[in-house]
């Protein structure tokens, strides 16, 4: 009996060790396979999106073109870091990530290259893509003011700049400045109003905060309804997500706040994109551009944007009914690359004024 146990355990250990080595060697085999198929119809995509509807969309693409899409999902910052680490060995042809600030960082690190395509130029407006065509916005979100329907008359709201008005003292809810959405918002204000004014603005918002920044965008809307403050700065799609939450209480929260698009009569509402870029060392460049064109096309855009309750980047595609119910709005008229260019300045200002 004992001997059996011993034999079994030794056998187990051996088997496991073999398994580990087998694991490594099958990886090797896969790699050669990949290299061979790379000349065939394949495109490799690194993405931060994780929606089931995306999979269906990519299947459609494969059916139409015969090009297989390999998807690798991950957190945006990690994907960029990974791409950087892999250098010219990377298997990725395309990178999809949220926020122009991040796309700019990928460009700055020399991870992307210019994609020349008339289709893309036609489908994606100029301000939603990189000046050198290294990335293209696919979906658009606004960073808006959400207010308590009980306590705030939307007539009182006007611009981002007005948020530092003393009437909002201890009324504003917003998340931490370590979040890229806030960094990009401030970057846009740096672009529009200049660095000094932007710093004054950040300082003023900190002064008017109802509490120290904590939680994510949804938590800010919840805090409005809970009465901790009257206004929250948040991205539009979170309202969509909350309205469709599996928690009925969250749905109630979303129903009790109003959406306001700031700065309509001045510089316009701050928008940002989730976008796609062709990697510097893409091995399947042609296939990759085909996929980019497909995702910017009218038939893909609707589904792609609606999966995350966002606005389509392609102007000929209508947004969903929910988004239409909030009304049309004027957007900031700056090239989104500026968000990336001003990012470092924005982060510095946040740290200097003590926006946690």
């Amino acid at each position, binding site marked *: 009996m004992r001997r059996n146990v*011993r034999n079994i355990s030794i056998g187990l250990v051996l088997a496991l060790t073999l398994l580990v080595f087998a694991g490594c060697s099958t990886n*090797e085999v896969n790699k050669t396979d990949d290299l061979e198929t790379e000349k065939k119809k394949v495109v490799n995509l690194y993405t931060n999106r994780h929606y089931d509807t995306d999979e269906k969309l990519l299947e459609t693409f494969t059916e139409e073109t015969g090009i297989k899409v390999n998807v690798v999902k991950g957190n945006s910052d990690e994907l960029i*870091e990974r791409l950087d680490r892999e250098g010219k060995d990377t298997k990725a042809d395309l990178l999809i990530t949220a926020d122009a600030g991040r796309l700019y960082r990928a460009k700055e690190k020399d991870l992307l290259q210019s994609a020349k395509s008339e289709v893309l130029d036609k489908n994606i407006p100029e301000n939603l893509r990189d000046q050198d065509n290294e990335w293209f916005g696919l979906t658009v979100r606004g960073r808006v003011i959400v207010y308590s329907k009980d306590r705030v008359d939307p007539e009182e709201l006007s611009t981002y700049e007005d948020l530092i008005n003393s009437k909002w003292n201890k009324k504003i809810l917003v998340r931490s400045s370590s979040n890229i959405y806030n960094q990009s918002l401030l970057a846009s204000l740096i672009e529009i109003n200049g660095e000094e004014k932007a710093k004054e603005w950040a300082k003023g918002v900190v002064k008017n905060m109802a509490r120290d920044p904590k939680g994510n965008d949804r*938590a800010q809307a919840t805090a409005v309804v809970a*009465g901790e403050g009257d206004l929250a700065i948040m991205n539009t799609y979170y309202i969509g997500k909350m309205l469709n939450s*599996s928690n009925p209480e969250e749905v109630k929260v979303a129903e009790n706040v109003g959406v306001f698009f700031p700065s309509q009569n001045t510089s316009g509402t701050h928008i940002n994109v989730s976008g796609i870029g062709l990697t510097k060392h893409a091995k399947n460049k042609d296939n990759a551009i085909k996929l980019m064109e497909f995702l910017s096309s009218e038939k893909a855009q609707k589904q792609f944007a609606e999966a995350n309750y966002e606005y389509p980047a392609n102007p000929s595609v209508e947004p969903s009914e929910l988004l239409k119910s909030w009304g049309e709005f004027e957007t900031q008229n700056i090239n989104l690359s500026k968000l990336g260019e001003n990012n470092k300045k924005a982060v510095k200002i946040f*740290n200097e004024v003590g926006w946690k």
Partner: protein
Amino acid sequence: MIKVRDIKSNINLWSILSLIFIILIVLPNLNIFINIFNESNQNWNHIKEYLLKDYIINSLTLIMFTGLFTIFIGTSLSWLISVYDFPFRNFFKWGLILPLAIPPYIGAYTYNGLLNYTGVIQSFLRNFYNIQVNQKYFNVMSIKGAIFIFTIFLFPYVYIITKSYLEKQSSSLIENARVLGRNSMETFVYVVLPISRGAIIGGVSLVILEVLNDYGVVKYFGIPTFSTAIFKTWFSMGDIDSAVKLASILMFLVFIILILEKFLRGRKKYSYTTSKITPISRKRLKGFKGKLAFSFCFLIFSIGFLIPTLQLIHWSLLTYKDILNIRFVKLIVNSLSIALISSVLIIIIAIVIANYCRLKNNFLSKIYSKTTLVGYSIPGAVISIGVILFFINIDNRLYWVYKMINKNSAKLVLSTSIIMLIFAYIMRFLAIGYNSIESGFEKVGNKFFEASRTLGMGITETFIKVDFKMIKPAILSGFILVFVDILKELPLTLILRPFNFNTLSTKAFEYASDEMIQEASIASLIIIIISVISIYFFYKAGNKEEV
């Protein structure tokens, strides 16, 4: 001639393997130390001017208060359980270990989901009694909340170690105190606390190391500490040099704590002073006192285990239809198989080094033995930087080998594979496996080994035929501990996993950070269930040994 014989007797399979393992553990850490003296860049100056102070204050606040509260809860519970008898004592004896089955990051988002505005408690008060509570009292996403979470899920470290010390060591002292007319409180303050100081400090330093290692809780609550700062500078700022600098400061902090631990323990080592174990005769608490003891234990058990588990079960019932599919099965298989492979490797390495060390027992072996413990004191964020730099370096050096095997081979082979993650697990958790195997060998002693050698068997043969069988319980308990720790591990897995490789813990954390708390519940529950089962077996195995 004698010299050659010396060398021959010193070089064998065990010594060579031990040396290789030790070198592999040390090398990645060198990377960090070498980088400390790199010139600082602009980012670093900015961090130093505006952020560093917060990181230091927050990290210190967290470890100080968590330390104090875990000492209070852990010691008082172990005192109650070991010297008194009251209703359900036998259940609480092991039930109070269970909070350890819930990783703090899971506890964190469960409590937030429970207490926030849209959570069960507030919705209930609002919808049925129309009571609007002040959010201030229900907000766990703060530094106070983090201290609460760490305390309630980590106190069992203090409890377990102090309890086993009290049960084994203190009976005569406690009885003397009783005979000499001290009441319970006096006995506790003047006798129990001083004699179990070593055990308490041992437990609390484990708690502190866990707090410094944590990434999940502080990230979710948005508290800037060293571990979140390292991730942020590395990934968001893309500045690995500054990240390394932060890592080195954190290492420095850990070293101070370890030295402090040594100093505070003083000469009172936590070890057997006598081989004769007389169990304490427990005092029966009757009536009100008994109820009070029961209530205290039940309160801690509820907050630390029952309530969060019930909440997770509730959420699971809401979401299982969307979550349980074939992809989820793959998640479980991933988690279990990587935990299994890594645990087996850790146990094998631990056996090799421990066996070598006990047979040699010289200066070198003492260094080996200390080195195995290094990984556990280094926070995951630091290990991951060291391991990545190390593997990229290896890949660069081995490129020509890869090319020989496969002409088209990519350059980064090991550093994009799962081997890197397994390696990091080994570095971090070897200490746990090593500790239990070392204590196993200690109990057995060298007599049987020597007898077997005298009878003509080799070291390896002796190990297989004699030692292995005798330390089997130690191997089993070491394996269980390591297995559970790997299953729960978050920061290393989050950074070092290959793409498209998810485990239960990374998936739960991703859902939670994506603000899909209900969806995170099933993965969390499975981790908890497996941990509970393992803890139960571990507890049973420990009890058997004692008898």
